[in-house]
């Protein structure tokens, strides 16, 4: 969406020498000169009121010999966003001023741009690789960087048909494996990185207490194999006794190169890959991707399909939050029973997904312009049974089961998570932001699909503590049930796709950023098309990854036992975090 006209005038008029409108066809926003980026960004935040920086995205325009960094800023009071970009020559070292001082939420995203694109952010406090390991050769998302199993720039590969003699990719690689080394590399001379940078970035000192007893801070590495880090996350902690005095998350243990593979795929082929981002909520992922491509293609979605999409997305939210409650209780020591109860409802919801889409988890259900198949009548009946009877009753039961439990309340109540100011500064979105008292829900703030037709409240709580973070999930389940009830009543008859089924779609050149309120927060997709069958740049702005930026802020000064609960509160999922 283009920024409103008044703003266009304002920003260019405010900085006539350093800001210009982006005039490329299909693009929107402003181009800011590198030198004045900090100044303009400060004005965008303070004068224009765009307090939430959601996405920092690097783009490699190798043909124009340029690198671009795209920033998306939004107002927490709602409305469309402001896009501003900075362009630099594609000659190493590529340097751009860091915006961490202005929006702390830029921290990890800038590190990702450094890791994958090799853009140095001047003034960044801790610019290390984030998804790959230190010492990795090259910046993989650059267009001239090729991986070991590289076959062609774009799919479909020519070797598959008509003369598709089967071979394994290993056989074509000089190292006979998915590895690549610089010429004349000798593994015996390698000096292995001992992660000194990571540990020196942790605050490390020793103190003397009153008795003159010298105490050292100790470094503890949690993960990547740890039962309560929700996957393969690793966190390096420094502890003073039991108090956390330093914390750095280390991620990338599930970095599956989603962006790079996506840039090779055709638009349609990306859909099943998006399923595997946040693997609890494949329907929400499909949703975000589909509306982004539809924005680029400028097509409308079939009316009935819009409702089906909403029904699926809300069912997804319910099962995600139920499982959240179950796993959180697991982390707190209530082993298994709550999560087994939660999984029971989840199974029933997954049955519906399996009946309409064919798979329990990886639904691959959305298509551009609609969905792949209609909901059969007997499945619709099942959805009605669930929504009108079972789910409200089971949510009540879950609340009766857990929410008054004294142990749970004692563990959660009064443990501070994030204040509203910090949450916004760190670009936190989703339930964590709303539990800090900021009623920011994209379904309301910047409505997509048919969410503007439903009557629902944005769940919000004001105590900023863990108990509120936990309870807000139940509030959201109730609101989702409300939306579902209306959607089921209002769903019209009609076609389920406005387009003819086609395995290749034509996407006009341009850029688009689409976002949905996934159960974990803002899930954004940024796509640049150059009119070819494959996107030029495909980037996912995952909620889990950006929310992780605030983890350090949340945990410093708390006890190590609360850290597990705080991590559970963020409700991260590694597939989305590492992509």
């Amino acid at each position: 969406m283009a920024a409103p006209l008044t703003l266009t005038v304002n920003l260019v008029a405010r900085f006539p020498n350093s800001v210009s409108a982006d005039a490329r066809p299909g693009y929107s926003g402003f181009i800011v000169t590198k030198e004045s980026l900090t100044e303009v960004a400060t004005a965008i935040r303070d004068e224009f009121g765009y307090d939430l920086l959601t996405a920092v995205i690097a783009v490699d325009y190798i043909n124009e010999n340029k690198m671009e960094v795209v920033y998306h800023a939004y107002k927490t009071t709602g409305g469309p966003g402001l896009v501003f970009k900075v362009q630099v020559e594609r000659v190493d070292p590529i340097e751009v001023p860091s915006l961490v001082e202005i929006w702390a939420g830029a921290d990890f995203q800038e590190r990702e741009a450094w890791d994958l694109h090799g853009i140095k952010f001047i003034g960044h406090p801790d610019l290390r690789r984030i998804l790959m390991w230190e010492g990795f050769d090259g910046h993989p998302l650059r267009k001239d960087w090729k991986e070991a199993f590289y076959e062609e720039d774009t799919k479909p590969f020519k070797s598959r048909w008509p003369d598709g003699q089967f071979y394994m990719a290993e056989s074509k690689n000089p190292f006979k494996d998915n590895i690549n080394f610089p010429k004349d590399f000798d593994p015996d001379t390698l000096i292995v990185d001992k992660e000194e940078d990571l540990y020196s970035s942790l605050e490390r000192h020793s103190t003397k207490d009153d008795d003159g007893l010298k105490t050292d801070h100790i470094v503890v590495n949690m993960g990547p194999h740890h039962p309560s880090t929700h996957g393969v996350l690793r966190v390096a902690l420094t502890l003073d006794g039991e108090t956390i005095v330093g914390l750095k998350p280390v991620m990338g243990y599930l970095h599956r190169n989603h962006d790079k593979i996506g840039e090779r795929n055709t638009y349609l082929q990306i859909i099943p890959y998006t399923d595997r981002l946040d693997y609890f909520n494949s329907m929400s992922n499909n949703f975000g991707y589909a509306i982004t491509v539809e924005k680029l293609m400028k097509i409308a979605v079939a009316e009935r399909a819009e409702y089906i999409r909403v029904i699926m997305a809300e069912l997804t939210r319910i099962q995600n939050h139920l499982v959240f409650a179950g796993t959180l209780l697991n982390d707190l020591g209530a082993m298994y029973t709550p999560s087994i109860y939660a999984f029971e409802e989840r199974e029933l919801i997954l049955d519906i997904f399996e009946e309409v889409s064919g798979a329990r988890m990886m639904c691959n259900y959305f298509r551009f312009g609609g969905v792949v198949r209609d909901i059969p009548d007997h499945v619709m009946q099942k959805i009605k049974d669930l929504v009108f009877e079972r789910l409200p009753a089971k949510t009540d039961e879950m609340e009766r089961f857990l929410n008054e439990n004294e142990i749970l309340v004692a563990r959660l109540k009064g443990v501070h998570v994030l204040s509203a100011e910090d949450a916004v500064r760190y670009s936190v979105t989703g339930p964590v932001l709303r539990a800090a008292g900021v009623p920011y829900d994209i379904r309301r703030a910047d409505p997509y699909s048919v969410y503007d037709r439903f009557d629902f409240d944005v769940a919000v709580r004001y105590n900023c503590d863990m108990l509120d973070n936990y309870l807000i999930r139940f509030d959201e389940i109730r609101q989702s049930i409300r939306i579902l009830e209306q959607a089921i009543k209002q769903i019209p008859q009609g076609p389920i796709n406005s387009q003819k089924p086609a395995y290749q779609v034509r996407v006009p050149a341009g850029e688009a950023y689409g976002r949905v309120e996934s159960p974990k927060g803002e899930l954004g997709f940024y796509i640049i098309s150059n009119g070819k069958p494959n996107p030029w740049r495909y980037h996912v702005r995952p909620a889990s990854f950006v929310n992780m930026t605030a983890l350090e802020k949340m945990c410093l000064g708390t006890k190590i036992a609360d850290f597990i609960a705080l991590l559970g509160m963020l409700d991260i999922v590694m597939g989305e975090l590492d992509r």
Partner: protein
Amino acid sequence: MENETINSPGYDIPDDIKNNIAVTTIDRLYNWGRRSSVWPLMFGLACCAIEMIAAQTARYDMSRFGMEVMRPTPRQADMLLVSGTVTKKMLPSIVRLYNQMPEPKYVVAMGACASSGGPFKEGYNVVAGIDKFLPVDVYIPGCPPTPQALIAGLIKLQEKIDKQSIRTAPWYSKMKDPNYVPMPILGPDLIDVRRNAEIRDAAATKESA
């Protein structure tokens, strides 16, 4: 195990003791004990891990097979269920976990990613199958395999355990750590230290980009 299978050692039993005493071979009894208490390592990698958890919950209930005891420490686990995409960054940790598991130990590659890299095979940070490093006993295709498919695969593993013999089991041999896998190193890319010479030669003859 059904009575008939455990009670038929393969030679004749006199009729008068047939229903009073269970006669079986040591192997049968030994394998019956092992197959009915395969404790998996509590270790999830990616999407498949969620289906693994689902298989533990009420609907599929893996405890019917004695597999509900998920052990967070490898020292107490019998089976490494590689449930998801193995990335290069994660691989050293997985190999370390495997080495820390006591014998007898089994590796199940759950899903396409663990078997061969799956849909992410072409990625720069993805290992093309855990079998490049660890000896895999059962491959379960699917992306992700449904909990029922996982259980079907684990039944396959039980069948494999049934065929093993106490006499030829490598873990009672004199060999120290028969399945020890040296730790891979993260350099410019993933380095399998068993292949250092080969990598050096291939890098020397590589056409420079």
